[in-house]
């Protein structure tokens, strides 16, 4: 499960917007890379397809590049954390993803760890 947190080579749109005048963009990339999975899982309690999920994440301040997000959905599904199905609603066929039973449990665990981590980091940064 945690291996997905460390997959390299990902790029995030919001970081790219700022990297030109930042001296250490790699550090920021590393920092944000770790939250991709939990951010994605957080928005999949209800079924979403790739594009709508990306829009939802961007609207909440977490823009993720499409080249990063779409493969991530497939990998999370491969790990049993998501389920998916092709559907035709108001438009072309789309593949919808949502949390599986294991995904809900993993998300709850990750969310708890994230809150602990935030509290710890707040203490360190004070």
């Amino acid at each position, binding site marked *: 499960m945690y291996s997905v947190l460390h*997959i390299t*080579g*990902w*790029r995030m749109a919001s970081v790219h917007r700022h990297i030109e005048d930042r001296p250490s963009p790699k550090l920021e990339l590393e920092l944000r890379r770790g939250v991709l999975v939990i951010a994605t899982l957080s928005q999949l309690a209800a079924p979403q*397809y*790739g*594009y709508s999920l990306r829009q939802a994440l961007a609207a909440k301040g977490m823009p993720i*590049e*499409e*080249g*990063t997000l*779409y*493969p*991530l959905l*497939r*990998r999370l599904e491969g790990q049993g954390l998501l389920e998916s199905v*092709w559907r035709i609603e108001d438009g*072309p*066929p*789309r*593949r919808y993803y949502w949390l599986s039973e294991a995904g809900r449990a993993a998300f709850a665990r990750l969310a708890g760890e994230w809150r602990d981590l935030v509290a710890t980091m707040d203490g360190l940064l004070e």
Partner: protein
Amino acid sequence: MDAQTVIDSYVRDVTNRLPRRDRADVGAELRALLTEELAGRAEAAGRPADEAMATEMLAGFGAPAETAARYRPSPALIDPTDTRPFLTAAIVGGVAFAAVAPLAQPHAPPKDAVSVAVLSWLGLLLLVFAARAWARRHWPRLVAWKPRDPDRVSRFGSVALVAVIVLGIVAYGAPAWVWSEFSHGGRLPAWLAYAPDFQALRLPWLLAVWGAQGLLYAWLAVVGRWRPLIRWTDAVLALGVALVLVWFLAAGPMFTSAAVDHTVKAWMAVISLGVLADAVVKASRLTRPSAPKPRPGSSALAA
């Protein structure tokens, strides 16, 4: 070229790098998502999507090979942690093989002998490191780090080594007798006969160094631990064996049969490099402190 053709081309290049069973499904999803992304961009730009817009979007998406790797990350053939040892072994071994190859294959053009030796070495290294990475992934516990006492000696291993050395001395020193024993009185075939000069002048040196190594490992089996004097002696004797083998390669024939001589020397070149590497490793252990200590003025002390 219209925008959809650009997307189709990209999707094809991505899916061609994926396992066959995933291609149709990933391709259909990727095509649908990219089409929707492009439509979103066109709407934001207030103009219809065209080739330039599609190409720009896909450039941001990443090269097809990168995208395929994100869909299905594949393990590295050589672990990143092994990069340095791999490069060291490749360079040091490559140079050593290039130096010895012309001696091992005196009848081949030097350029061909060097190319074959170096490429064989690199191929072997690749196999060894790939197997190591595979073992780490499949049996992490088996290859997990364990603390060890560098001075502790396996007495059984030392005795076994002595036995191997004694057998080697007998087999190489009296091949006719060994052949006779195993073939119930048969004569050593002519093609296995040593060249007279080699047998009289050069072979005894190897047997003498091996004899000294046998005595050393017998002593080690009794003592049970490496000590500085034993280590020094071991390194010197290993170097001695390597030098004797290189001398054999460079000096005249070892066997009366040219074909046998040629084959044995080719193998001996490889073995001599292994022995030389062993001697270098043993010597480096002697000069290396048992535990690294910070140097005065280093950042750890200055902090």
